[in-house]
């Protein structure tokens, strides 16, 4: 008897339908065999399914069973085929019908219950795109799978319940569409510890962070240790706007794929903030493996990639950032195929000016040799730096000011005017303007604009243009830097709520680009 059950497999973040064909034949030596390029985790599925059947009191057929995962020429991996195989066997033995237009997905435990399985969000998307009505997933993944509207999601607790459901006796609970966002009201509450007002002084970086959050511009901070670079970069999360719906789907897809959505969570709201350590390998950053899996830049998609100690990363890692920074995606090609991963992230980098850290600091003496400094800074220069819009030199706040300012701040309410709250309101307003502007485009922020967008949406008057040309000549900027300046100016005018870019916006934008780190 032959039964076909539908499921999916993933390649990169693309999904592909898989037919799990279960054939139970009364002829031949009893046994279970799986074909169709399965990997080790699928092969072990045999034992999980067999034991789960016994522990649920179901009869495991003592016949020759052959299972085919079609299409047979695509490599498949993961434990998600346990459920489709089990359903196929139940139907083949008992003669029950496999529910119409349904997808099955999930890992079995020995006791017959189901476990959280990565990728159920991708399953729902596949179901919606290909007109399947129902999906059966482990009960822990219901929220994740039900984030997609118009797909009926059944949370399977264990095999016996599922069998009864197929029998038409005890219906599994059905979820459809949004499960309601409970945390929406207090979205920013959890960022209280990252309050930007906690950092004393450093108004210029705060302004730069605001621009960075509003327009999605890349930022680099260079300065001696203890200037507050890391602390400020981390406080960026408290002013970032939440993900829009479309963005959220993109991000949830990636996180579902790598199994980083905690059980019971649905669509992600918070922008990712990734800060990989500087010893990260090239494959860890970009993505890799013989069966390519996403790297840090993909996990930071639509969010922030914070690279502390930027110059300490290996050159290979830094140079590999070039292409993703420019086009927002990365193609990872390996022996088992080539995969595109999205990587539209905002780079926030922090670095010391030299190996000892104190070059240019007035309070400390730099102990590095000339050549060491040159080597160190050569990592900062060139093509990667050219792709960063905002360059800031950070100097530590003087210690005497720390004390006086702190006591003042507690009394002086006026000082609190530029906390995270006020900044995020401005950022959200600027994002609204951008959303309206790019209604009919495929971009979301000013930083993503292509050169055609720039000529369409960023009209400059002639004094501004002259100023730009002057700056390009004076600071020896590239064409890319020229366009980046215009985009930053566009964000500044959005923050200012002005319909057109004015000369003061251009002038301020140049200020963030005129740095010579030496």
């Amino acid at each position, binding site marked *: 008897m032959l039964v076909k059950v539908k499921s999916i497999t993933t390649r990169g973040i693309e999904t592909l339908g898989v037919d799990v064909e279960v054939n139970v034949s009364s002829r031949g030596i009893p046994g279970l065999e799986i074909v169709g390029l399965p990997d080790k985790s699928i092969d072990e599925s045999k034992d999980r399914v067999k034991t789960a059947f016994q522990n649920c009191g179901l009869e495991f057929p003592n016949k020759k069973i052959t299972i085919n995962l079609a299409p047979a020429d695509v490599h498949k991996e993961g434990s998600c085929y346990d459920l489709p195989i089990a359903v196929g066997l139940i139907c083949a033995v008992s003669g029950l019908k496999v529910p119409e237009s349904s997808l099955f997905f999930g890992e079995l435990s020995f006791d017959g219950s189901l476990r959280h399985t990565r990728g159920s969000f991708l399953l729902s998307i596949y179901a919606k795109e290909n007109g399947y009505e129902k999906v059966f997933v482990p009960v822990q993944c219901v929220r994740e799978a039900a984030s997609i509207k118009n797909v009926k999601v059944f949370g399977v607790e264990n095999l016996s319940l599922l069998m009864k459901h197929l029998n038409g006796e005890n219906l599994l609970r059905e979820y459809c569409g949004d499960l309601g966002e409970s945390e929406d009201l207090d979205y920013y509450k959890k960022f209280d510890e990252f309050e930007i007002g906690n950092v004393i002084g450093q108004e210029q970086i705060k302004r730069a962070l605001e621009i960075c959050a509003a327009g999605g511009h890349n930022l680099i901070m260079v300065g001696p240790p203890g200037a507050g670079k890391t602390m400020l970069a981390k406080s960026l999360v408290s002013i970032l706007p939440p993900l829009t719906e479309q963005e959220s789907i993109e991000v949830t897809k990636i996180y579902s794929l790598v199994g980083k959505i905690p059980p019971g969570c649905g669509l992600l709201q918070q922008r990712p903030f990734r800060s990989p350590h500087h010893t990260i390998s090239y494959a860890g950053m970009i993505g890799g493996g013989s069966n390519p899996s996403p790297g840090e830049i993909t996990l930071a998609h639509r969010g922030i990639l914070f690279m502390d100690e930027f110059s300490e990363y290996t050159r290979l890692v830094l140079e590999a950032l070039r292409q993703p920074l420019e086009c927002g995606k990365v193609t990872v090609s390996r022996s088992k195929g080539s995969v595109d991963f999205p990587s539209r992230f905002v780079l926030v980098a922090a670095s010391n000016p030299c190996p000892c850290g104190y070059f240019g600091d*007035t309070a400390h003496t730099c102990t590095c040799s000339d050549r060491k400094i040159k080597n160190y800074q050569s990592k900062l220069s060139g093509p990667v730096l050219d792709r960063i819009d905002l360059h800031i030199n950070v100097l530590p706040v003087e210690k005497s000011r720390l004390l006086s300012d702190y006591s003042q701040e507690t009394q002086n309410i006026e000082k609190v005017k530029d906390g995270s709250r006020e900044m995020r309101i401005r950022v959200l307003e600027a994002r609204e303007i951008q959303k309206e502007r790019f209604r009919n485009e495929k971009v979301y922020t000013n930083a993503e604009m292509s050169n055609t967008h720039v000529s369409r949406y960023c009209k400059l008057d002639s004094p501004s243009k002259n*100023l730009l040309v002057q700056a390009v000549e004076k600071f020896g900027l590239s064409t890319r830097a020229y366009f980046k300046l215009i985009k930053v100016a566009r964000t500044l005018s959005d923050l200012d709520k002005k319909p057109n870019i004015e000369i003061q916006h251009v*002038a301020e934008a*140049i200020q963030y680009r*005129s740095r010579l780190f030496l």
Partner: protein
Amino acid sequence: MFEAADWVRFLKMDGREKECEEVGCVRIEDENYPCLLKEIPDPPKHLYYKGNFCEEIFENCVAVVGSRKMSLYGKKVVEHLFSTANKSMTIVSGFMSGVDAEAHSQALHFGMKTIAVMPCGINYVHPEDQVGLYEKIIKQGGLILSEFESDFKPKLWTYPKRNRIVAGLSKVTVVVEASANSGSLITARLANSYGRKVFVVPGSIFSDLSNGKIQINNEFAKTIGSGFQINEFLGLRCTTKSGNTDFDDQENPILILLKNEPMTINELSEVLSTDISELSMELTLLSLDGLVTEQGGKFYAC
């Protein structure tokens, strides 16, 4: 002992004629050997040179030395000294990065003669990344000097050796910037021991690059504020200061503050109680006009 002239002959035999065409050699007994250098206790027995070796170039030599880690202030000092100095003097320095390199290139910029004394063999460029400057010195009538032959690599002991030539050639030595253990202090002390004049340019007492200057200032050196004092000492005519001194933007509060002391944008914003965004704009306009520059997060008035 292997004689200098032998080496030139040796190169010719070796088919490396091009190298020895460029390189000249002068011995201590020769007439055109720089006479000031002869006066020091241990003059080099022979000098190799490339470029314009003539009597006039050794006439009014001024050594300008300083730290490899030059600050923006040091750069401005060199520029200011040379713009006020008589252009007939020759600037001698050690061709290191930092103040030395700045001295050579500013000298060429102001149309002065310059001598670079190398710590390595005459055919070796050290540091390598200054090849451009090296060639410029030769092309624009400057002189490269070394007591070491061929492509001898610099060693720790060759730097002080080189310094004695820098000091020995010059009537005056000017220390632009020097930290407490800077090599330029060696040059200054040698110059003093040869009975030559040593000048220092004052710096901020908070800067590490002032420590060495304070030391020698207490011992023997004299403080100067412009090239005029050098002219006076050498008995040369003063040139009028170039550039316009009448600033039409006296009213700009940013410039007034920055002329007093360099400040970060955050400090400026606090003192002037101006918004960062507005201040950024003003500073951009000022720097495009060449009135302020930024280095390491601080803004300086030009």
